[in-house]
């Protein structure tokens, strides 16, 4: 158990290290001089300005020294200065991070609850209802997030006027209200996978002897489903949900742009439009970090959720 945790953590660190190297090194892959790339978005790229950027970013230092400095800064929470806002990148991030975290958490709650519920209904009722659930959830997964987002805006925002179409709102309830449509746009596409994994896992449990025993003992069907089938079926569902949550961070790029929410995702798009590379680097690094940490935690938790995995591991 401890050895596995150590191995996973080391793997995580190695991958993060490599990813940070890619994100940092991308600057040097750009065609032309890194200094002129960094001021690329600005028209007044005088030689003095280039020299200033060169000095500010220590571009004359060797590559590995620069990388070391940058990584050292990042580990202390210093992502450098934004070229456009002339502000510390860390301050920009900290003002936007809560919105994105809220959106991801809200969306996670939506798809986990709805996805598992649909999966249970599919497994218990089966037949035509199952086919309808599969068809609708697959359809939702086949529509790009930005189309779903704008369709929600068009219908619930503009036509019906039930929800605001832009902004993130302040305060908890207002924010919940503002982020309902964005969270839905993010969550709807994930229902297909979650409901199918739930259904499949439950169907496998139905065949097990312990379910037959529970029925034979005269347990009410809803109790059989809840205590025996669903509970035993949950492990793969939890793992899958964890992986999806990890990938939701990347999904915020599109959804925040569609709803005009100022979060991490829209910051990434803006920073690219404005050639603000330090900000791009920081947001990408944080998103990769969030993704990798969540997936590793899911891996680590798997044997805790499902002790049967632990048994198999020790036997092997």
């Amino acid at each position, binding site marked *: 158990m401890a050895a596995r945790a150590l191995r996973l953590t080391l793997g995580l660190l190695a*991958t993060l290290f490599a990813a940070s190297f890619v994100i940092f090194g*991308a600057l040097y892959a750009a065609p032309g001089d890194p200094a002129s790339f960094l001021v690329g978005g600005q028209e007044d790229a005088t030689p003095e300005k280039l020299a200033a950027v060169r000095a500010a970013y220590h571009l004359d230092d060797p590559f590995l020294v620069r990388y070391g400095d940058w990584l050292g800064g990042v580990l202390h929470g210093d992502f450098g200065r934004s070229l456009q806002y002339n502000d510390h990148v860390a301050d920009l991030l900290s003002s936007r991070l809560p919105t994105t975290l809220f959106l991801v958490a809200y969306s996670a709650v939506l798809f986990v609850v709805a996805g598992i519920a649909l999966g249970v209904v599919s497994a218990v009722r089966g*037949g035509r209802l199952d086919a309808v659930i599969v068809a609708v959830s697959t359809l939702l997964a086949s529509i*790009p997030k930005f*189309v779903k987002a704008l369709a929600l805006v068009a219908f619930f925002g503009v036509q019906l006027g039930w929800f605001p179409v832009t902004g993130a709102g302040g305060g908890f309830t207002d924010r919940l209200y503002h982020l309902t449509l964005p969270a839905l746009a993010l969550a709807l596409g994930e229902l297909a996978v979650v409901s199918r994994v739930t259904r499949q896992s439950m169907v496998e449990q139905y065949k097990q002897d312990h379910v037959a025993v529970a029925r034979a003992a005269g347990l009410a069907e809803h109790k059989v489903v809840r205590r025996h089938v669903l509970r035993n079926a949950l492990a793969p569902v939890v793992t899958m949900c964890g992986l999806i949550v990890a990938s939701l961070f*990347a999904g915020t*790029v599109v959804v925040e742009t569609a709803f005009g929410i100022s979060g991490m995702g829209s910051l990434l798009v803006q920073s690219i439009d404005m050639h603000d590379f330090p900000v791009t680097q920081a947001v990408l690094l944080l*998103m990769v970090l969030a993704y990798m940490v969540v997936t590793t935690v899911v891996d680590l938790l798997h044997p805790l959720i499902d002790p049967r995995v632990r048994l198999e591991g020790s036997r092997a």
Partner: protein
Amino acid sequence: MTLLQDSQPGRPSSDPRSPGRASGPRTAAEPAATRRRRSARRRKWPLSLWIASGFLALTALAALLASVISPYAPDAIDLGASLADPDANHLLGTDQSGRDLLSRVLHGAGPSLVAPLALLALASVVGIALGTVAAWHGGWVDALLSRVTDVMFAFPGLLFVILVVSVFGDGLTTAVVALALAYSPVVAKYTRSIALAERSKPYIDAYRVQGMSGTAICALRLVPNLAPQLLGYLVLMFGQVLMGMATLSYLGFGAQPPSSEWGLMVKEGQAALVQGALWPVIVPGTAIALVVVAFNIVGVRISDRLGARER
């Protein structure tokens, strides 16, 4: 319990998502009956498959004949008809500059379909080559390639593509190459897994004994033998690739104005949405969704016929 047995094999199913299950007779029938069996199966094409393949054929036709059949030029500006609702003049309405949406969506079909095809072709060339080399060579080559793949997989969704675009600037070519780079590890991983199994088959050893070089075996025997499976896998990827390309254009990193690529059309139509004009977003958005859904329906069928999902 009885309800659960609905999905048991052997039961004839008209469900497009599970044609594999309905293929029971395929293994049971003898080769002599192949022709009859095939025609019987063709008659059993479910309705959704007919609609989907018909729609795709129409879309391809529209992309080819866009300049002939569209009523207006895609960039003909008519400020007098800005944000018009659908009527006899403009069957699907107009956008903010008064450009006819039907003409634009027809002209956009070309770039919207060709760009994903091109990038999928590029990704499959790179991915199949890398995956085959990794499986064939093994050892440090395999280890190195799988480390590189791991790092690429550390970037969720389109983030790797966004990194490339942020460095090399936006534009359709950059977006296509970047997406191809991002999808090639996926192809490489799949290729490696099936090539490993194929490599251990006796016929490969037979070629080796005959003195055929490793490169020749890979290029002339191994990859061609994997082709059906690979094709089946790539067909299933197409919907996802098309969505990725459209998303990139929507973010402004893919096709650039005045192109009427569908993702870009959605981006340009978004401003009109808050004014209550839904058509500029709904028309291209629906086009993307319909093509992806249709392709998924057809793709699952093709993929099953090619046996990519059974192994």
